[in-house]
């Protein structure tokens, strides 16, 4: 077998990268100090929407140690605006690295100062005087759709910058024959995965060569390169990107390219390297927020609970710039009907600008929102039909024997056993026991509920999805790159274009190479981080969209196959055997059935150093580079297509209790079962599952980026935006239901984003807890005030709580 026996892949190998993190020797971007380095700070708008008048930096520049100031006027003169994906005339939306003409969200950067120390830069920023003329702000997306609404971008005819309808199957016929139609108005709230390390950028522009070197914790620098080079009017080959260790990304560090542009400008202006370290407040106000959506939706059922169809209007509150949107809105296509068989779906999407921070990738980007929509509608149907929430899902699941299954929007589900997973999670959670507990608790008047939810993460992303947004875009597919070298001493080095932020690639890549070449993971040195001068990359390189297990692994396997073929060729030549008889194991190439062998080190020495012994036509060296691409196609007719290769999925169950006095929710029991196909490293993968549960339960219970009517972000520090601690979570019961992917050579699926099931299970559970009172939850954020309102609407009859009716 070309890829070698599977000895290391699939094992819970302990991580090679741990030592430096455990001993405080990780190298994060703020740990880097360059000679002559200066420090930047941003001046930010306190208003959600304001015309920017005079900027007087004289007092700042008068401070000793303050070197320079940069304003939006200079940015407008020196750079081109960021490219937009939306169609004309909305592609005239103007987005620069500093606010130009108007500030469009509270916290938008309006100017930048550079000083000798970070403290001085902060002092200087406070001394910059900006004249603002406050303007009316759009803080409600639906209000922003009205023609009389204030315009977020005055040069655009409307705040509705993109709209499209997606019609699969025959929705009208489905609704015409329905026994039941449920209607829900739902809100999916803004939150952020808030990595513990904020964004950091160091830029060093060298005027002598016209090159810029950037160190930053961005998750996909080479994918972002066009969004940096073109605005800066610099050729792409004049950039070097270095990603040191990254303290968490989760998508939030995908779109930090405006800061990358600003820092290059600053370095160019002052002629020295400049560093910027984002404050937590800035990160919450002005990095990236997760997609916020308002759904008006209906689901049609037959009376036995079979789903006939769904129609929904989705209004996306995009914030004031689109950046890479509307990908988040259109991402629904990538698993439009989640794990269910129904074939009639109409989605009417609107993306609306508001005076809030821009939205963008956030773990389970645009995917958990669609799962939330479908799962909440199913819950409504189950309640009305008097069906058990588990039973109604079992009735509607795509069946294992139907896999691979092409769904309504063209997604080809690559295997999976949804009913089997449901049975596993019921057992792990002890569903029957939980139901008994709930009945007992309800007899005591306690508000206890059970929720179940399915989530799905389609990965990786087929960029031809962008042609659905704008058919003129010349982009499609996905790719990742890897190289492997065996040097003349037998030392093995591997590198990929993946940009790790804690996913353990130094270990999993070593496992893949170990199996590919017949060595051990300890023999393989994997280059950490990313550096465009040394690492391989493709136009899509980076770590986002759960892609590594498919494209990163695919690239490593491809490079292994190339290298292996060469090793076998040389060994066969030197050992005078047939290539088919050469096997690689234990660091050597051996003629099968004999004791004739050569070590990889001996082969490498010949390949690099003893060249006359090579076959005549063979290139010297042992180095292989490979760019892997999944078999992705263009979109089909009617905006259909397989826009992902794999569809990982999970089912979660939650048992919750609601405090009738405070509206607070306690999760008493939580279980989830996941399937990401074959696991490269089960230990690392379990860590990803835990982390995703943490983010999603945190989002449902504690985390909400909410604005008031004036567009002020009310959760801009960790005191108001409560990131959960270990004391805020129950123990997670986690199981794994492995079915191999039918679409990938290793049977892996991308995974790790969570797909929404923990968040939705918590919401479903609270909805169930309130059901005996007739209460109903319509928001993905379980705000205690909202829960109390539901309880009070229901009136008296609650035992045991302070503040009951």
């Amino acid at each position, binding site marked *: 077998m070309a890829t070698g026996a599977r000895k290391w892949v699939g094992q819970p190998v*302990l*991580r090679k*990268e*741990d*030592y*430096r*993190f*455990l*001993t*405080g*020797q*990780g*190298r*994060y971007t*703020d*740990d880097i100090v360059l000679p002559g380095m200066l420090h930047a700070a941003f001046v930010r708008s306190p208003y959600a929407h304001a015309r920017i008048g005079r900027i007087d930096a004289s007092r700042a520049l008068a401070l000793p140690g303050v070197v320079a100031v940069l304003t939006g006027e200079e940015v407008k003169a020196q750079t081109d605006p960021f490219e937009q994906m939306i169609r004309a005339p909305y592609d005239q939306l103007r987005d620069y690295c500093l606010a130009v003409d108007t500030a469009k969200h509270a916290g938008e950067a309006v100017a930048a100062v550079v000083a000798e120390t970070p*403290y001085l830069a902060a002092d200087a920023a406070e001394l910059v005087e900006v004249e603002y003329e406050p303007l009316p702000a759009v803080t409600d997306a639906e209000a922003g759709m009205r023609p009389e609404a204030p315009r977020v971008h005055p040069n655009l005819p409307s705040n509705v910058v993109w709209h499209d309808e997606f019609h699969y199957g025959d929705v009208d016929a489905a609704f015409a024959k329905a026994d039941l139609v449920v209607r829900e108005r739902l809100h999916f709230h803004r939150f952020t*995965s*808030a*990595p*513990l*390390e*904020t964004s950091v950028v160091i830029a060093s522009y060298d005027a002598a060569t016209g090159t810029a070197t950037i160190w930053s914790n961005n998750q996909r620098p080479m994918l972002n390169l066009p969004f940096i080079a073109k605005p800066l009017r610099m050729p792409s080959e004049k950039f070097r990107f270095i990603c040191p*260790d*990254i*303290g*968490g990304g*989760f998508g939030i560090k995908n779109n930090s390219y405006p800061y990358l542009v600003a820092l290059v400008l600053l370095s160019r202006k002052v002629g020295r390297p400049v560093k910027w*370290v984002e*404050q*937590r*407040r800035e990160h919450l106000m002005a990095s990236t927020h997760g997609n916020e959506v308002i759904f008006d939706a209906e689901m049609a059922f037959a009376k036995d609970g079979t789903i006939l169809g769904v129609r929904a209007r989705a209004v996306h509150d995009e914030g004031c710039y689109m950046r890479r949107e509307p990908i988040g809105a259109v991402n629904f296509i990538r698993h439009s009907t989640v794990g269910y068989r129904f074939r009639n779906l109409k989605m009417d999407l609107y993306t609306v600008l508001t005076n809030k921070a821009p939205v963008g990738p956030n773990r389970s980007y645009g995917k958990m929102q669609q799962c939330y929509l479908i799962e909440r509608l199913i819950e409504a149907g189950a309640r009305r039909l008097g069906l058990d929430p588990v039973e109604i899902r079992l009735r509607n699941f795509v069946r294992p024997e139907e896999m691979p299954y092409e769904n309504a929007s063209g997604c080809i589900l690559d295997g999976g056993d949804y009913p089997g997973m449901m049975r596993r999670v019921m057992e792990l959670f002890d569903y029957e026991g939980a139901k008994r507990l709930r009945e007992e608790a309800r007899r005591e008047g306690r508000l206890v509920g059970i929720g179940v939810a399915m989530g799905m993460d389609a990965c990786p992303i087929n960029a031809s999805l962008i042609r659905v947004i704008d058919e003129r875009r010349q982009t499609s597919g996905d790719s990742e790159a890897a190289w492997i070298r065996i040097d003349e001493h037998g030392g093995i080095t591997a590198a990929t274009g993946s940009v790790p*932020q*804690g*996913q*353990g690639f130094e270990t999993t890549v070593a496992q893949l190479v170990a199996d590919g070449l017949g060595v051990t993971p300890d023999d393989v040195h994997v280059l950490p981080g990313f550096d465009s001068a040394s690492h391989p990359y493709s136009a899509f390189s980076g770590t986002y969209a759960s892609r590594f297990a498919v494209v990163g692994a695919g690239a490593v396997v491809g490079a292994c196959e190339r290298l292996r073929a060469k090793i076998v060729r040389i060994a066969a030549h030197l050992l005078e055997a047939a290539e088919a008889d050469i096997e690689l194991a234990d660091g050597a190439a051996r003629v099968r059935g004999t004791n004739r062998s050569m070590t990889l080190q001996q082969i490498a020495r010949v390949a690099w150093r003893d060249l006359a012994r090579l076959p005549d036509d063979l290139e010297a060296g042992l180095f292989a580079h490979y760019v892997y691409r999944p078999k992705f196609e263009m979109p089909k007719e009617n905006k259909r297509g397989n826009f992902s290769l794999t569809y990982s999925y999970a089912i979660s169950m939650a048992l919750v209790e609601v405090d009738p006095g405070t509206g607070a929710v306690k999760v008493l029991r939580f279980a989830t079962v996941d399937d990401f196909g074959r696991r490269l490293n089960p*230990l*690392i993968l*379990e*860590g990803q599952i*835990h*982390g*995703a*549960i*943490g*983010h999603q339960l945190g989002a449902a219970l504690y985390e909400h980026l909410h604005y008031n009517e004036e567009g002020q972000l009310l959760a801009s*520090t*960790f*005191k108001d935006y409560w*990131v959960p*601690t*270990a*004391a*805020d*979570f129950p*123990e*997670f019961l*986690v199981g794994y239901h492995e079915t191999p992917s039918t679409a990938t050579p290793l049977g892996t699926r991308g995974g790790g984003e969570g797909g929404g099931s923990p968040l939705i299970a918590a919401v479903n559970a609270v909805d169930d807890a309130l059901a005996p009172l007739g209460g109903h939850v319509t928001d993905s954020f379980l705000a205690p005030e909202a829960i109390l309102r539901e309880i009070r609407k229901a009136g008296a009859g609650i035992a045991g709580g302070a503040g009951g009716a």
Partner: protein
Amino acid sequence: MARRRVAVRINGRPYEAEVEPRLLLVDFIRTVAGLTGTHVGCDTSVCGACTVLLDGRTVKSCTMFAVQADGREVTTIEGVAQEGRLHPVQQAFHEHHGLQCGYCTPGMVLSAIHLLARNPAPTREEIRRGISGNVCRCTGYQRIVDAIEAAARAQAGRSA
């Protein structure tokens, strides 16, 4: 602001400098002593990434000024492993996959060490409360709790 002379012992070594009184202890550790293992994760003293031991007790070094540590002993993550040998807590974090991106890990390890010094046989509940001053966004905490339980067993001399 007139500078003040401060002398702080960090991991057994003396560091002396003239600093602004407003210099935070975490910035003294990172930029004056050059020990970058102590991290900053927030600006409101919530996340614990900056946790160090001051005279043996955990403090958030972002919430102290360097001048307040004058004449005192600080232990940072760089001072935990002895002569390259990992502390049982560090070893347990490795064996139980108690870290992913590593950014919270220095503060988390020091909090765990301090927790086990006060309570050598904590329950999982007690561990969760004991590290509730340290935010992690990667792990969901479960494996960190496993690691600290295992470290407690190792330190008590029982087999894991």
